[in-house]
């Protein structure tokens, strides 16, 4: 005799029930009763703030990209701004520089946090201390970090990095004073500043890897590197794919480092697309090119949106295997 046969009232309670609400259950009144209105009211301040400071300026920017303006009067000019931007010789340089920055950041700055996270997860004691240490550069305000690194990058033989290089016999480098070394110098600082955040995320993701997989790999005779390649990385696949596209979007919009370190120099070697937008709006011919600045912003936004869409479509099959 089963429990259900002995206790018929239990059977009654456990009978299958209809769970989807009937049509008359979904009305505005039930929505309010269920707490929908309170939710909306709670979210309203945030919605208003976002609308005023995020969405409305975006709409304004789209509208401004079709105008010629001095911020006092506005004149509709169709797609003239877009054509002017596309004809600008510096745009080509900016796009190439931005790609260069993104590729360098990808090659050097993307594997590094994964590696660091894997190493840190193997550590027995002081895990918290190492995490804090890794995250410290992220806490430093970006402007302060750049000014600090400007001092480090001083090109004289007595500059901080040049002194350190001197200890191992390498001659002093010009760092940001040289057109070929400027961009890699910027990438170095940007990686240092941003790695901590990624490390923390990967550390958390690593906790979700079942330890039995490592044991199984060990049994099959895998050393540490093969374990990382065959167990850790595939398990982190989802996180890695998302971090990858986030990094690409972020590096495509790099502005702070070129602006503060070199203002786009030497000789336009560190001009990026965002810096070009800034220049259109605020430098050179003052009060002229707000239309072109917003036009370029719009083109960049559309490009990144399309790239993300294609990226997610392509990696859909890979990440959910």
């Amino acid at each position, binding site marked *: 005799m089963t429990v259900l046969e002995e206790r018929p009232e239990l059977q009654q309670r456990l009978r299958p029930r209809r769970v989807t609400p009937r049509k008359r259950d979904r009305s505005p009144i039930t929505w309010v009763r269920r707490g929908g209105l309170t939710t909306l009211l709670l979210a309203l301040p945030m919605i208003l703030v976002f609308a005023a400071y995020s969405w409305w300026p975006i709409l304004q920017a789209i509208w401004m990209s079709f105008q010629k303006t001095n911020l006092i009067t506005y004149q509709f000019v169709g797609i003239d701004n877009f054509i002017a931007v596309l004809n600008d010789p510096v745009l080509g340089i900016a796009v190439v520089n931005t790609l260069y920055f993104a590729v360098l950041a990808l090659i050097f700055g993307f594997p590094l946090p994964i590696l660091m996270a894997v190493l840190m997860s193997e550590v027995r004691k002081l895990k918290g201390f190492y995490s804090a240490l890794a995250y410290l550069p992220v806490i430093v305000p970006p402007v302060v970090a750049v000014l600090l690194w400007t001092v480090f990058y001083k090109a004289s033989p007595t*500059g901080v990095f040049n002194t350190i290089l001197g200890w191992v016999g390498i001659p002093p480098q010009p760092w940001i004073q040289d057109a070929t070394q400027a961009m890699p110098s910027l990438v170095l600082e940007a990686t240092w500043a941003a790695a901590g955040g990624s490390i923390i995320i990967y550390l958390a993701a690593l906790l979700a890897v079942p330890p039995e997989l490592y044991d199984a790999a060990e049994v099959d005779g895998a050393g540490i590197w093969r374990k990382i390649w065959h167990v850790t990385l595939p398990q982190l696949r989802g996180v890695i794919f998302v971090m990858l596209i986030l990094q690409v979007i972020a590096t495509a919009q790099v502005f702070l480092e070129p602006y503060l370190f070199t203002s786009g*120099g030497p*000789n336009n070697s560190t001009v990026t697309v965002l810096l070009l937008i800034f220049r259109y709006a605020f*430098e050179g011919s003052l009060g002229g090119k707000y239309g072109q600045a917003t036009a370029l912003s719009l083109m960049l936004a559309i490009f990144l949106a399309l790239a993300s869409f294609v990226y997610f479509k392509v990696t859909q099959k890979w990440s959910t295997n």
Partner: protein
Amino acid sequence: MKSPTKVIAIAAAFATVASLAACSTGGSDGKLELRVATFPPGADQAAYDAFAVQEEQFEKENPNIDIIGVEYEWKAPTFTAQLAAGSLPDVFTVPFTDAKTLLENGQLADVTKEVTDLGYADKFNPIILDAVKDADGNIFGFPRQAYALGLQYNRDLFEQAGLDPDSPPTTWEEVREYAKQIAEKTGKAGYATMTKGATGGWQLTAQSVTRGGVMQDGTTSTIDNDGTKATLQYFHDLRWEDNSMGDNFLLDWGGINQEFAAGNIGMYTSGSDLYTALVRDFSLDPAVYGLTTIPVEEGGNVLGGGDIAVIPPTVTDDVKAAAVKWIDWYYMQKLLTEDGAVRDAKALADADQAVGTPVLPVLDEETEAQRLKWIEPYVNVPREQMKGFFDGIVNQTPVGEPKLHTQEIYQILDNVVQAVLTDQNADIDALLAQANKDAQALIDG
């Protein structure tokens, strides 16, 4: 469902809205509020003390106007943001070249009537007044101060290098020798030049002009002239052969002033009126400051510049009238009347602010000579340290900056200067040819 927290929240929201509404009304007891530009961020307190004295004096003579001093620095992003938000001061200053762009874009108020009504429209130096006129001859501002380019030098570094601070260089060759000596004996940059933020092009133009090079001829761009070529070759030689230009080549106006005030630069070219800003905003020790004329070669000239006091076009008529009163009182009267000059000089001197910085007259020569006599008892800048400039400037006639697309062309030239200073193998001729092409495209397009 009335819960205490809900009631408190609603009450707090109401109070916030009410207080916001209260603090947005301006103009207490019927006075007209006039927001005027004062000093850049970083100016010392004494400057503000002097301004407070002058503010009181003006308000006594004009009881209906309430002057509100606003910290102000001419920077394109700040100007743009303030213009868009409508929060520009009602009176502010703009350099000549930028003023031309602004008035062509309709971003300055037309003050032709006010200037002519005040009666001194014809007292202005016509070349200078031309910088603030549009094509139809309407005036858009009050030129308040002009300067010529000069060679700033650090007397202390001169002494350390074994040079006599009272005999500064008079030719470009001497500048080169002195720079080399300073670099060798002290390890600091003997000579430096601005390179970014459109100041690179500005200084390149200034130094080309002294060698007879002109950047524009009517509507033709002439960047690839001999004077500019010689200037760039000079930079190349000092940088790569003598190694006397230090190791930082990304300098704008603020950056180079900072380095100079910190004692890292021996000589550089900039405006003759720089002393005020160097001491007030960059904490330069007045004892180390030296100024002489920029070396001018045969057939060369000196570049001049200046700034003007302007009013945004969006102000109401009574604010505009008040603004013109303030401009006249604060900027103009000290140039025209003994009372004005003495009053201003006294207020500044009492607060240890610079009186007697070398400037060029915006009005005519006799008015300027008279003004100098009036303020003589109050002069407190070390004019003996600027003897080179005062003696030499009488023989130099300043010329204006290029007229067309000035700031954009300066930005193009920034890159040329940066390339020459950071790339030993930079091809000067090719760079100039390309820059000329780009500049001509701007002028034509």
